[in-house]
């Protein structure tokens, strides 16, 4: 009897203690961040930068966060990847400092206070499965393939094989950029709408006759990156402006950069520095000057 009673009491007290301690921890954390973001010292930055947004910018965000945190050990950056629109929504709601978007901001987003800071340019590669003999696709052919006017590779100089049109879901930054660049917004007839970059790669790799599009920097040797209008999808060509399919990577802030916290300003300064530019180049993106 007594043991049971004791056990019950213990359980209740344990619950109370854990609840109380959880509360205590939370308020402690809050006060920490408050004091640090309020501190004036610029040489010794301390605090957190939160960013959320495009899954296409995952590589960029992670690499930048890692390098920046190595340079400023007092700063913690925590990137999340929830999609371009969700990222902008989050920065406008004030839940994160930076909203990543792999597209230009919409007018509604700009009028709500989001500022478009383009940090890099990304190329979109048209990918084919390894067995495909086609190496060059013109803009017109791409349009015809993606609107369903052509459904066999023989029409573009390949083998007699059906075309499986793979793309991203509505709302995806890559899809928006791709369709806009080709001028076929919402005229596309996809047979596969896949909601991740990796998914598109996997589908194209495993399906004979498939065509898809992904960020240039994630293309590997499991697929063929086709030439577009005779131009190879390379960094030089994108920088030179001859490659058709490229898009901006935006790190949006609520209000101008100069109105942001010291840490966020330092991050943008870092991205504009030579060191930051090297970093952006190292992951296959193109810097803006």
């Amino acid at each position, binding site marked *: 009897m007594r043991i049971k009673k004791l056990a*019950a009491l213990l359980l209740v007290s344990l619950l109370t203690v854990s609840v109380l301690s959880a509360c205590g921890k939370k308020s402690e954390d809050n006060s920490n961040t408050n004091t640090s973001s309020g501190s004036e010292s610029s040489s010794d930055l301390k605090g957190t930068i939160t960013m959320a947004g495009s899954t296409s910018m995952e590589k960029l965000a992670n690499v930048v966060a890692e390098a920046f945190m190595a340079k400023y050990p007092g700063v913690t950056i925590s990137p999340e990847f929830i*999609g371009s*629109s969700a990222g902008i929504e989050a920065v406008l709601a004030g839940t994160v400092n930076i909203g990543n978007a792999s597209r230009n901001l919409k007018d*509604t987003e700009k009028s709500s206070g989001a500022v478009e800071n383009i940090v890099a340019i990304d190329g979109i590669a048209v990918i084919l499965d390894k067995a495909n003999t086609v190496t060059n696709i013109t803009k017109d052919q791409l349009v015809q393939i993606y609107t369903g006017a052509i459904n066999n590779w023989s029409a573009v100089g390949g083998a007699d094989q059906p075309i499986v049109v793979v793309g991203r879901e509505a*709302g995806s930054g890559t899809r*928006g950029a791709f369709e806009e660049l080709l001028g076929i917004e919402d005229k596309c007839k996809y*047979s596969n709408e*896949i909601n991740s970059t990796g998914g598109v790669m996997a*589908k194209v790799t495993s399906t004979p006759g498939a065509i898809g599009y992904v960020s240039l920097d994630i293309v590997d040797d499991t697929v063929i990156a086709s030439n577009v209008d005779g131009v190879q999808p390379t960094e030089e060509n994108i920088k030179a402006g001859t490659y058709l399919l490229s898009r901006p990577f935006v790190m949006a802030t609520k209000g101008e950069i100069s109105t942001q916290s010291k840490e966020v300003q330092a991050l943008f300064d870092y991205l504009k520095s030579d060191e930051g530019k090297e970093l952006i180049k190292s992951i296959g993106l193109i810097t803006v000057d």
Partner: protein
Amino acid sequence: MSDKSFSIMGGYNTKNTVEKVAAVIFIICAFFAVLAVFSISLYMIISGTPAIFEVGLVDILFSTTWAPTAADPSYGILYVILTSIIGTSMAILIGVPIGVMTAVFLAETAPKRLAGIVKPAVELLAGIPSVVYGLLGILILNPIIYKLEMTIFKNDPAHQFTGGSNLISAVLVLAVMILPTVINISESALKAVPKHYKQASLALGATHIQTIFKVLIPAAKSGIVTAIVLGVGRAIGEAMAISLVAGNGANVPLPFNSVRFLTTAVVSEMSYAADTHKRVLFTIGLVLFSFIMIINLVLNKIMKGGKKNADS
């Protein structure tokens, strides 16, 4: 402490407190589930209705064009709803006969040793995560279906090739996924049929097979129907597996078309959707929610009906 504290009189107050505290804890725990259901319903209605007023209920439910990001956006989900209904019914048509036969086998005809293999296999099937079904669908099912598709539509210039990601693949995956539910519940229903039904039937000269189809299955009818309704619930609510194999194009639900289910419509576009588009996705969630509610109501009716039959 003396032994006196063990007397009923001395312990009464503390004992009473413990009882009361325990009762309160039970009530709080019980209300978690109620609270969850209530808040989910409320949340679905609150977040799903704005788009209905914005776009119009008829334009959402009965229009066939899904172009949420177009300059002149259109949010018709008729094909999506039809896909969910047709896909689920086809999965039921394939899965239920197999499931019920398996249940008959396990409950009636299986030799003990064989049942000892089949039964754990079925239970294991129930525990496999749905994403694994989807991956297997991509790796094994899609290439086979693609070959079939290429043979059937070889000379059809109008057909859009899906690479095997189409309604048939989704239906086959769903049919396998509902098997454990159908088998387990049908089997317990068959086992619950009173022994003397079977004995009487056999004594009257019916064969074992005749007894199964004319006596046991009709007697277990309400249990089997429950199994089917739960299977429908599982199939219509499944998202992960079919999002990998269905192709996700909002098309007419024909066998070799790339199709989109209610669940995959929400899942695939939620991460990048904004404004009205996002609100319409919540409305799709609300439509799905109402489907599930209807299925549950039907299930409750059937279960009550079954009880009445058993009582009389």
